[in-house]
């Protein structure tokens, strides 16, 4: 009898173990800072949920293509992407509307992050400011218009329009020219007139870090998430606070439609949005918090997009505007700027 009970217990243990092995959540994330995420987010969550996380990484286009290609039988349960990319997926009917009652930490988020693209298709998990990084020993940048000033000709790099920083930079250049930043047609033409003065149009912030450290470029717009790569450089770099303000953007969490793993995905999203995880991620200088309850030291805050005042002051470009106009912008950009 004793042997029979032991055998049953062993069978149960094996069955439970097998069940835990089967319980997996596949997430699609940006490829940076994966070591930090593993330590702060992935490993603790796997212990809590007794499940296995499958991490898919890549750039936005690759990951969005994967979600679209597997629309009828999703392989990705949950993804983090830029807000405009989330809207694009939502318009293609690839995302599930979130049941926000299952996200206990939602109310702790800044209001802009709670329903950033409408109809609860996404929830923001990080903000980023976008401004100009420059060589403080050589120049002083006071306005976005300085980027196209003759004094900086041949020393400036701009982000390509196809990346997230491109439209934000154009919006701020348009505002610096006295417009409202909503119609980018004029400012694209203006950049086209100065195209020979621009060193290059970069696609990745890592590319810009290299160019600035090699002294090829002395001023360029970049997201705050890349600032840590500049502040440790032996060269004196400064973060501009232009008269027109800083631009900003948001990355969001989404859930694929009909993935069949919704409960686990909600549990993971809520854990990521918790004050505990958002604080640890912020302290590791990985992402700026969207959770308003996160408190970090002044030193950490200096490296992040942190605090209600800063977040509320950011100039945001609506995701819908980006999606609706992106094709026309790229077409005009290719004709007037890149050529």
């Amino acid at each position, binding site marked *: 009898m004793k042997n029979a009970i032991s055998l049953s217990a062993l069978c149960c243990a094996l069955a439970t173990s097998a069940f835990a092995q089967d319980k997996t959540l596949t997430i699609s994330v940006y490829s940076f800072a994966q070591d930090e995420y593993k330590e702060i987010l992935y490993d603790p969550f796997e212990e809590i949920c007794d499940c296995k996380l499958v991490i898919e990484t890549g*750039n936005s*286009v*690759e990951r*969005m*293509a994967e979600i679209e290609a597997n629309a009828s039988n999703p392989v990705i349960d949950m993804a983090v992407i830029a807000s405009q990319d989330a809207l694009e997926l939502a318009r293609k009917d690839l995302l599930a509307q979130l049941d926000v009652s299952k996200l206990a930490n939602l109310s702790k988020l800044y209001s802009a992050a709670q329903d950033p693209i409408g109809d609860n298709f996404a929830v923001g998990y990080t903000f980023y400011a976008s401004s100009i990084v420059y060589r403080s020993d050589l120049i002083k940048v006071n306005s976005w218009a300085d980027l196209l000033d003759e004094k900086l000709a*041949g020393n400036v790099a701009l982000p*390509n329009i*196809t*990346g997230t920083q491109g439209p934000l930079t154009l919006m701020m250049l348009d505002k610096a020219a006295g417009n409202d930043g909503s119609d980018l047609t004029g400012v694209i033409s203006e950049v086209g007139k100065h*195209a020979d003065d*621009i*060193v*290059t*149009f*970069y*696609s990745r912030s890592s590319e810009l870090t290299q160019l600035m450290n*090699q*002294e*090829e470029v002395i001023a360029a717009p970049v997201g705050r998430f890349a600032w840590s790569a500049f502040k440790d450089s032996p060269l004196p770099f400064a973060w501009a606070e232009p008269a027109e303000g800083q631009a900003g953007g948001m990355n969001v969490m989404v859930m694929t439609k009909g993935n069949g793993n919704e409960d686990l995905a909600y549990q993971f999203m809520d854990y990521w949005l918790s004050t505990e995880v958002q604080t640890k991620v912020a302290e590791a200088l990985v992402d700026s918090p969207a959770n308003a309850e996160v408190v970090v030291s002044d030193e950490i805050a200096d490296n992040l997009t942190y605090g209600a005042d800063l977040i509320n002051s950011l100039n945001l470009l609506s995701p819908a505007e980006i999606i609706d106009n992106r094709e026309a912008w*790229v077409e005009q950009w*290719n*004709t007037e700027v*890149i*050529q």
Partner: protein
Amino acid sequence: MFSNTREGLALALPAAIFALLLFILPVGILLSEAFQSDAGWTLSGYTDFFSKPLNQTVFLRTLKLGVLVAGTAAVIGYAAAFSISNLSPVARGRVFGLVILPLMISPVARTYAWIVILGRTGIVNDALVGLGLAETPIRLLFTETAVFLGLLQLFMPLMIISLLSAMENIPRDVIPAARVLGANWFQVFFRVILPLTKEGLVVGGTLVFTGALTAYITPAILGGSKVLMLETLLYQQVNVSNDFVSASVIAMILIIMSFTANLLLKRIATARK
């Protein structure tokens, strides 16, 4: 060589299956996308591609740089191969080793070396400013010149190897005989050396031209988005725009350009017989 053709076929079969399943089939599927639309088979992908001014510029730039790199490599390659072929066997082996040495170094490392040379704080600009030839450093990176130099350095060894191999097959007495009979060096080159090394030129020219057309790292690092070439545009279409149709069109154009260059070079070589 084989007692029957079956043995030969059996030995070739694994390589043939490998090539068919892992190269010809996937590339064929990818390229066929360039001829498909919702309405069926079409050439609209090509007409759309060439209707855009940016694509026209990129196509012509790629063709221009490919021809320039192959042409310059041929000129320098002939001089280098001729001088190497006249060295003693020991010296020839050593110099040949130096020629192929760059091929053993990653193209990424070789291309990054150009940043050190052509950058604003690089050797060239330091020399220009130091000698008073320029007041401030001049822009050399992210220009067609930088891409041209990078590609030339990348593929020059292939041209030299091809020409050297062809030159070593020229009978030793032919060139002295031509000189004794009164031919000047210009005539020796065009009437003796060139006809006898045309196969090497065809092979080297095809390798260099095709390599220059399809290299990605060098144009991406030294040219960036301001000096787009077909291969960097292809990468952009896939990774930024997720536009596989345009990418397939570009891939097909690159293949056609490579085959055309090979056929043209062979035709030129044949015409000289």
